[in-house]
């Protein structure tokens, strides 16, 4: 009976967390816009943190409720699942996921570097405040690069629109309007509704994550498995549902950059912020198996996906099957051999 109740709490809390993260980010963007923060900065930040808030929230709550290992498990487990599981499922299902060299060079390199930074700090025995500051600073630099790139892209698009305007009179009205939209970001007043919804989103996120971590710990106790395992698999896969939805549906629609970019960006956020911020409040202990097995697997699958993509700037169905098989192999080893 306890198992059924806890599984139900887990499922409901996941929905609460995912919807709350959505509401929170939406309204936070509206507040940012009212303060005059540029649309580009808001857009980049919102898409970078949007799908990763459930992992971050779980890691934070786990730290505050003295289960930091579940938090580390969620982050590392999510990163392995994001790459081997989600990209594996997507490439297998859709058959072809394309990428562009610039995106892979930037986001792929940063994802790999952040994974290496994490392992370097893990070697110290625990991830402390100093490591947290470094990680957050590295993420800040990455966001700055993203915003710079987005501004460059936006300028390029503006030039194109102006060229089209000169060439095609019939499109002039529409293009002029979209050109104006790109150039100006109007600041407006913050409505009470926005503030209330931001608070509702934040509260939902906190309550949902608390319930999620609680049910995860309870289920681990009932099943007699370490909480780290719960974090690595159940919570990691659960909190990554937004990534799965975005990656799969964007690949099906042919929006390939969004598909792979979302996974790489999410993995960077998970490590630098998902572990970096909790480390500011408490030393995050490192489980030996996590350092000797989970973290190396995370680096290995990251390297693997980058090498697979590099062959032709795409992931094929065969690549997807290879990635999925790798995840299944990892799960079997971790759950039944090493546990």
């Amino acid at each position, binding site marked *: 009976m306890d198992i059924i109740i806890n599984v139900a709490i887990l499922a409901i809390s996941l929905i609460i967390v995912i919807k709350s993260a959505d509401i929170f980010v939406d309204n936070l963007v509206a507040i940012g816009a009212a303060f005059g923060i540029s649309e580009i900065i808001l857009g980049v930040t919102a898409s970078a943190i949007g*799908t990763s808030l459930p992992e971050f929230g779980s890691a934070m709550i786990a730290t505050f409720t003295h289960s930091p290992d579940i938090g580390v498990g969620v982050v590392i487990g999510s990163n392995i699942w994001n790459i081997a599981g989600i990209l594996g499922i997507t490439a297998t299902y859709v058959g072809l996921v394309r990428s562009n060299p610039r995106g892979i060079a930037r986001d792929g390199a940063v994802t790999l570097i952040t994974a290496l930074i994490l392992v370097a700090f893990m070697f110290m025995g625990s991830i402390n405040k100093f490591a947290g500051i470094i990680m957050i600073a590295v993420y800040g630099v990455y966001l700055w690069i993203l915003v710079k790139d987005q501004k460059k892209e936006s300028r390029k698009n503006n030039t194109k629109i102006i060229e089209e305007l000169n060439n095609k009179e019939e499109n002039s009205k529409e293009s002029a309007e979209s050109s104006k939209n790109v150039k100006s970001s109007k600041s407006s007043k913050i409505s009470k509704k926005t503030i209330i919804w931001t608070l509702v989103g934040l509260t939902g996120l906190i309550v949902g994550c608390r319930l999620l971590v609680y049910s995860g710990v309870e289920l681990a106790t009932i099943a007699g498995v370490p909480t780290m395992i719960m974090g690595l698999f159940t919570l990691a896969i659960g909190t990554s549902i937004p990534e799965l*939805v975005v990656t799969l549906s964007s690949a099906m629609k042919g929006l390939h950059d969004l598909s792979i970019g979302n996974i790489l960006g999410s993995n960077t956020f998970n490590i630098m912020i998902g572990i970096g911020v909790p480390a500011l409040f408490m030393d995050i202990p490192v489980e030996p198996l996590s350092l000797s097995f989970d973290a190396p697997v995370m680096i290995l699958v990251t390297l693997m996906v980058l090498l697979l993509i590099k062959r032709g700037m795409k992931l094929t169905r065969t690549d997807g099957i290879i990635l999925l098989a790798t995840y299944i192999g990892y799960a079997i080893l971790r759950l039944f051999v090493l546990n």
Partner: protein
Amino acid sequence: MVYQKILVTSAGEYLDQMAKEVMELIADWNTEVIGLYVVETSTPILTSRKIKEMMKKELTEKGKKILLDMEEKFKGPNIKFKPLLKEGKPADEIVKIAEEEGVDLLIMGTGKSMVDKYLLGSVSEKVVHTSPCTVLLIRTSKE
């Protein structure tokens, strides 16, 4: 028989190959070509509003580029081109536009593998069964 009004739809892939074959067929015809791109707006449950907006924006941009490309490709002395950008479910919108515009020939690409067809479904297959006019399917192949 020369068709007076043709609807050509494409999601962008294999457009070069498709346009080449279509132009070989219609180059001398006195006809109106309607180029259609459908922005697919459906998203799975739990997709955030921001992501939905982002997808719609990206697909609209992509659609505009494809229509401009089509305009370049379907040029002929007696060919009049009309671009159309619509939102909705591709198969439903294609059939709806074919009815509204009163086209007498609908041209689209086909060429998914059996696995792709089983997993992703086929727009052309749905259209074939409900189209109000003759349908010409151009066999496309992966590079």
